[in-house]
C-alpha cells in the first residue's frame, strides 16, 4: 500500500496520542481517588425495597473509624432521605436504588454522580475532606416533574457530627395532682455506645436524676445508647405543685432537643388523669 510520508507521520502521532490517552485515563482511574460504579451493589426487586436491611430505614450509619454508609431510595420525584449529613475527613459508601424509573444521584458540580436504575443498587464510595454544602439533583429524566427532584448534602466539621436522634412522646394534658410521664427515645447510629446525659426541663429549676419532676424543674438522667441501637427514657412528672395552665418542657440529649407543652387542668375540668 502506498502511503504518503506525511500520512505515515500523522498516523504515528495519532497512535501515540491515543495510547497516551488510554494510559493517562487508566492511571487516573486505578490510581487514588474515585472508584468506578460497577456491579458490586447487586440487584434488588423494587417491590422488596422496604424489606431490605439497608433501605428499610435509609440514611447514614457509622461503620467504624471514619467510615460511613448512606442508603438512599430514589423515587419520582424525591430522595429518601432528601438531606444527607456526613462529617469531614470521612469515607462514605452510598447505596442508592430506585422504586420506579431510572434516576441519577448527583452531587452538583462534583464527580459524585451515579445512575440509579430500578432493579439495581448503585454502590459508590466517596471521600469527603472539607466541610461544605452541596446540592443533590437528579440528572436523568424521570417524568413530568423531573426538574423538582433534588436533595442536599452537608459535610460538617467532625466535632459537630453525630448520629444521635431524639424523639419524645408525652401527653398534652394532665390533671392537677396526677403523675404523668414524658418518654424520650434516643437512637444512636454510631458504631460505638453513646454515653451521655438526658435532661428534662420544665420551667427553670434543676433536680437530680431519678427524682420525680416537680414544678419548674430540670431533671438529668445518664444514659448509654448502644451502637446502632436506641434507648427509651422515662421522666416521671408529678403535677401536684404545677398549678393549672401551660407548662413548656424540653428534653435535651447530646445537643439534640425535643420539646412540648403540658397543660395541667383542674380535676373538675375532666382532664385525662395520668395518661
Amino acid at each position: 500500500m502506498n502511503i504518503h510520508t506525511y500520512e505515515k507521520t500523522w498516523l504515528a502521532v495519532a497512535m501515540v496520542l491515543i495510547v497516551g490517552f488510554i494510559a493517562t485515563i487508566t492511571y487516573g482511574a486505578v490510581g487514588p481517588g474515585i472508584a468506578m460504579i460497577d456491579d458490586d451493589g447487586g440487584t434488588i426487586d423494587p417491590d422488596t425495597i422496604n424489606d431490605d436491611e439497608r433501605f428499610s430505614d435509609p440514611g447514614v450509619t457509622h461503620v467504624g473509624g471514619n467510615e460511613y454508609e448512606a442508603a438512599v431510595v430514589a423515587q419520582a420525584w424525591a430522595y429518601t432521605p432528601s438531606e444527607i449529613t456526613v462529617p469531614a475527613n470521612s469515607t462514605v459508601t452510598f447505596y442508592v436504588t430506585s422504586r420506579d424509573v431510572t434516576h441519577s444521584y448527583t452531587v452538583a458540580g462534583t464527580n459524585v454522580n451515579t445512575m440509579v436504575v430500578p432493579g439495581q443498587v448503585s454502590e459508590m464510595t466517596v471521600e469527603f475532606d472539607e466541610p461544605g454544602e452541596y446540592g443533590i439533583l437528579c440528572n436523568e429524566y424521570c417524568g413530568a416533574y423531573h426538574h423538582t427532584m433534588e436533595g442536599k448534602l452537608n459535610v460538617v466539621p467532625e466535632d459537630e457530627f453525630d448520629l444521635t436522634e431524639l424523639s419524645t412522646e408525652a401527653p398534652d394534658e394532665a390533671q392537677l395532682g396526677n403523675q404523668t410521664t414524658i418518654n424520650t427515645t434516643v437512637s444512636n447510629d454510631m458504631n460505638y455506645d453513646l454515653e451521655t446525659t438526658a435532661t428534662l426541663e420544665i420551667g427553670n429549676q434543676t433536680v437530680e436524676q431519678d427524682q420525680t419532676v416537680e414544678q419548674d424543674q430540670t431533671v438529668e438522667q445518664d444514659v448509654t445508647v448502644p451502637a446502632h441501637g436506641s434507648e427509651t427514657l422515662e421522666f416521671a412528672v408529678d403535677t401536684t405543685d404545677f398549678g393549672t395552665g401551660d407548662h413548656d418542657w424540653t428534653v435535651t440529649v447530646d445537643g439534640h432537643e425535643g420539646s412540648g407543652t403540658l397543660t395541667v387542668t383542674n380535676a373538675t375540668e375532666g382532664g385525662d388523669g395520668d395518661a
Partner: protein
Amino acid sequence: MAMRNAYIDQFPEEARVIRAALWSSFLALMIGGTLGLIQGLHRTNVLRFIPSQDYYTVLTAHGVLLVITFTIFFLVGIFTWAVTTSLDRGVKDIRFTWGWYAMMSLGTLLVGVSILGGVVDQIPMNADVLYTFYSPFQAHPAFYVGFVLFVVGTWLAGFDWFRTWWAWKKDNPDERIPLPTFMALTTMLFWYLSSIGVAISILAFLLPWSLGIIDSVNPLLTRTLFWFFGHPVVYFWLMPAYMLWYTMLPKLSGGKLFSDPLARVVFVLFLILSTPVGIHHQYLDPGIAEGFKFIAMTNTMFLLLPSLLTAFTVVASMEHGARQRGGEGYLSWLKALPWRDPAFTGMALAGLMFAAGGFSGMINAGLSINYLVHNSWWVVGHFHLTVGTAVALTFMAASYWFIPQLTGKEIWNRSLGLVQVVLWFIGMTFMSNAMHRAGLFGIPRRTAEPQYEGFSFDPAVGTVAEIDAQVALGAALLTLSVYLFITNMVLTTIGGSTSDAIPDNTYAGTLSGPEDSPAIIDNLKLWTSIAVVLVIIAYSLPLASIIDAGGLFGPGIDPWKPSVVVDPSLVLESVRGVMP
C-alpha cells in the same frame, strides 16, 4: 449549448426519491429547530409559554426529529445518490426504492403522532420518553412500532444499494468498488450489526410489554441494548458527512482527494470499531463491571484514529485545492479557497467545529472525568458540535450543491446561503460554549428549570445569568439560520427556473487512487467478520451478567406511563406513604 449533465438528467427517477427524502429531512429540521428554540428560551427562563411538564414532550420531539428523522432521511437520500452516481447505474427497481421511503415515512408518522399525544389531549397516546426511551418508561405501542418500521425501512434501503452493487459487480468483476459506494456499503454493514440491538430491545421486550404480553422488563438490559445501537448510530449520522468531506469538499476546493486508500481504511475502521463501544455511555451505570467499561473506553479511544486521519486528509485535500487555485505560502493558501460558496464554507466550518467537538468528546470518553460531566449540559454542548453541527451544517451546506443537481434549478440566493451557514457557526459558538461551561459546574441536561429550590449553581467564571443569555441568543441565531435555509430551499424548488448552468454530477478525483491499496481493503466479508467478533468480545459477557443478575425480564419492574401527570406535592405524600 453543451448538454447539461446534472444528476436529474442522468437519473430522473432516482432524483425524485432523493428529493422526497431530502424534503422529509428538511421538514424535520424545521420543526426540530423550532422546538430547540422553545427549549433554549424555556430552560433559561427567557421566554416561556409551555408548562414545564410539557418541556419533556418538546424535548422528545426535538431529539427524535433531529437525530433520527432529519439525519437519516438525509443519509438515505445522499447514499442513493452516492451509489447510483459512482456505479453509474440506477437502482434495480424504483418501486422498491419508493417502498422503503414509504416505510420510513409511515414509521416517522406513527412516532410523531404518538409524541404529539403528549400535548394534544385529543390524541389518546403518549410517548414522553425522550429519544432514549429507557424502560420502565412505557410509550404507546405506536411509538415502538413506528420506530421499528423506520429502522426496517433503512435496512431495505441498504439492501437496495447492495443489490445495485451486486449487479454492477457482475458487469465489472475486476474493478475496485468505487469510493462513494464503498463508503455507503461499509456504513450500512455496521448499521445492520448495531441496529440489531435496538431491534431486539423493542421486538423482544418493549413492544410486547407495551401490549401487555409480558409484564416486566429488565431496565438495565434494554438500556444496554439501546446503547449497543446508540453509539454506532452516532457514526451512522456522521458517515454521510464524512463521505461528503471526502468526495465533495476536495472538489469544491478546486482539487482532488489526497488519498483514496486512506479513506477506505477510515471507513473500515468505523465498520470494525463503531459497535463495541456503546458501554461508554454507561460508565455510571450500576450492574456493569468495571472491566467491561475499560474495554469500551479503550475501543473508544482507538475510534479516534479514523477521525484524526480524516482531519488530516480533509485539510490536505483542501490545501491541494487551494494550491491548484493559485494559493501559496504556509497558511496564506487558505485565502485562495472559495469562501463565497456556501457549500464549501458551510462544510469547512462544520469540520472546524467537529475538531472542537472531538476535543470535548475525548474528555467525555475518559472514564473518570466522565463522572463530572455525565448527563450535564456539557454533553449537550458536545453533541451540538458533532451531530448538531459537523453533521447538520455539512448536510445544509451540501444541499446548496445537491438541490440544483436534483431539481435542475439554481439556488435562489447563494449569498443568503453564505449568511446562513456563517450564522449557524456563530449561533452554535454561543450556545455550545455556554452549555459546555454550564456542565462543568453541574447544570444538568434534560431539565426544564434553570434553578433548584434548595441550592444554587456556582460557576467559577462568569454567572449563570450570562450563560443562560448566551444559550438563548445562540438558540435564536440557530433557528433563524434554519429558517433562512428552508426559505432558500423552498424558493429554489418552487420559484427558481430551470438552468442549463448546473455543473455536471461528479465527485472528487483522487491524487492517490484505489490501485495504491491492496485489494483486501475491499473484502467486506472479512471486515464484517472482524466487527462481529469484536462485538461478541465486548458484549457477550456484560449482557450475560446483566441477564444472570437481573433476569431476562427483570425482577418485577412495573411500567411507568409518563401520561400520568400528578401534582408533585401529592407525590411527596405518596413517597411518605410507601416509606416504612
